[in-house]
């Protein structure tokens, strides 16, 4: 799983590089040659799905999701650990409808052969597929975290949260 996460993270980083270059080249072409790359807006939008959702599992593994810690900081480390596990369970439940709806949308787009109107008539399914992969990987990571954290708690340990710099 860690290897898959690293791969998805790297693909997300590559997507940011690609979308930055795509927009910059487009501006250059527009200002210098009064032209532009075909369907660049659609390509940037599809790359955004990769950039945001593929690293979701890695962000979850790094416990980078922003939470309000003011009240729970006054609790014992064990009680705090239990709440961290509960947060992961809520996350798993919150993401499940997204995965299910994303999967339905992906299947519908593939079977309909849906595409974006434009110069290249790019297919719609890759963005949906990236969405399903990103959310699915995140759910697997959340499930693994829940399992690991419960084991830690049972062994008498405490679960550590992310440092504040991760926020915003």
């Amino acid at each position, binding site marked *: 799983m860690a290897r898959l996460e690293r791969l998805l993270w790297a693909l997300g980083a590559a997507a940011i590089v690609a979308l930055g270059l795509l927009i910059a080249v487009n501006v250059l072409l527009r200002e210098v040659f009064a032209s532009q790359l075909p369907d660049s807006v659609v390509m940037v939008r599809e790359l955004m799905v990769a950039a945001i959702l593929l690293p979701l599992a890695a962000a979850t593994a790094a416990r980078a999701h*922003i939470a309000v810690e003011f009240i729970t900081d006054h609790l014992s480390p064990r009680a705090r650990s239990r709440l961290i596990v509960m947060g992961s369970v809520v996350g798993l439940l919150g993401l499940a409808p997204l995965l299910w709806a994303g999967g339905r949308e992906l299947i519908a787009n593939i079977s309909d052969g849906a595409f974006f109107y434009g110069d290249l008539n790019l297919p719609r399914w890759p963005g949906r597929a990236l969405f399903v992969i990103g959310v699915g990987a995140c759910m697997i990571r959340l499930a693994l975290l829940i399992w690991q954290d419960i084991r830690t708690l049972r062994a008498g340990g405490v679960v550590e949260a992310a440092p504040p710099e991760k926020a915003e």
Partner: protein
Amino acid sequence: MIDPATLGLIAFAAVLVLLALRVPIAFALASVATVAAFTIFATRTGTFMPERAIRATASLVFNNAFELVHSYDLSMIPLFVALGHIAYRAEITTRIYDAAKVWLTGLRGGVAMASVVGCGGFSAITGSSIACASTMGRICVPEMLRMGYDPRLATSSVAAGGTLGSLIPPSVLFIIYGIFTETSINALFMAGVLPGLLTLAGFVLVIAVWTWRDPAIAPAGAAKVSTRDRWRAAGMAWPALLLFLIIVGGIYGGIFTATEAAAISVVATTIIGFAQRRLTWAGLWESMKETCIQTTAIFLIAMGAKIFVSFIALTGVAPSIVEWVTDLDPSVVVLMLAIAAIYLLLGMFLDPIGIMVLTLPLTVPLVESYGLNIIWFGVVVIKLLEIGLITPPVGLNVFVIAGVVGRDAPIDRIFAGIARFLSVDVIVLALIMAFPVISLLLPMGMR
């Protein structure tokens, strides 16, 4: 059957309970909104019909989440976050601080003033208050402590200076405000410039007055630096000035959109970093990976919030609250003071993004019903959130600085120093609220 407006209020309460129990903001918003939307769809006809509700809820959840990430305009968020990371690794952000230090070194408290100016410059490149406080805290605070600055001044100047990242463009908070209020992000960026500079000037003034009244708090100014050295130091900061011109000048002049300015700045920073041999391929790659994690965390909250806001729109709770407030008929001043009090109170406990996504669905319709300008209101909200970053007991920036400094400056000493900077924040807030022209002057002049 539950009345949708009541269900909306129950959902708000449920989110607050989950947040208090340390459930990540994104998960709390998405899960509550999904369950509540399902309840509304399932009971709409008066009888419980779960089959139809499943499809409707799935559409609501997926469309809102997917449309948010599948956005061209919002690609500016990962790009601006990347810009901050790359500029830091290319040592562009620290040059502003270095230059300010040379210029202000002759003054008592000059390094503290330089820290605030450095924070302002850093903010003009990054857009994140916490990143600004974290980075500048690592550079400036240890140096000031080594020079004999009182820990209260050394830490509070950077914690307060770090908040400038929210007002001075590019600002992640303005982008999120723009998404949820469907306001021009270009105009919001421009609206933040003058209030941001006003705050920066106020912070420098605080340090000047503080060190004048209590000279023991900072060492005397160092020997004067020659004019030539000053200009040489200023010249070293040219990449930061260039980036500021690309972002602010490009948007103001109508040459670029904010998204394009972000992409051009990232490419320019990378080229400058490599040309000056300060950026490596490994450094660039690490910057992109750090960008991914930070951006994903921001977007996940925005996705949860988008789903929650759509659910709130279904309930009709916002119009009910607008109607209730309209019946009370408070004056604009009372309304704005009440809103400010709520934001300041929430700012003591919640993080800025969480506050925005929870409150905007209710406050924006209210403010609009009074015919107030939404861009001006955006500046007021961001200023209030800025204040929340340094108010006890949570004050995220203060905790970030405390984490950086360690035992040299405990939290209570940092908060003791913050009080003076807070007074400037309150004055600037009052000015922004009383004179909307401070915020609206630049957006009005945009092409």
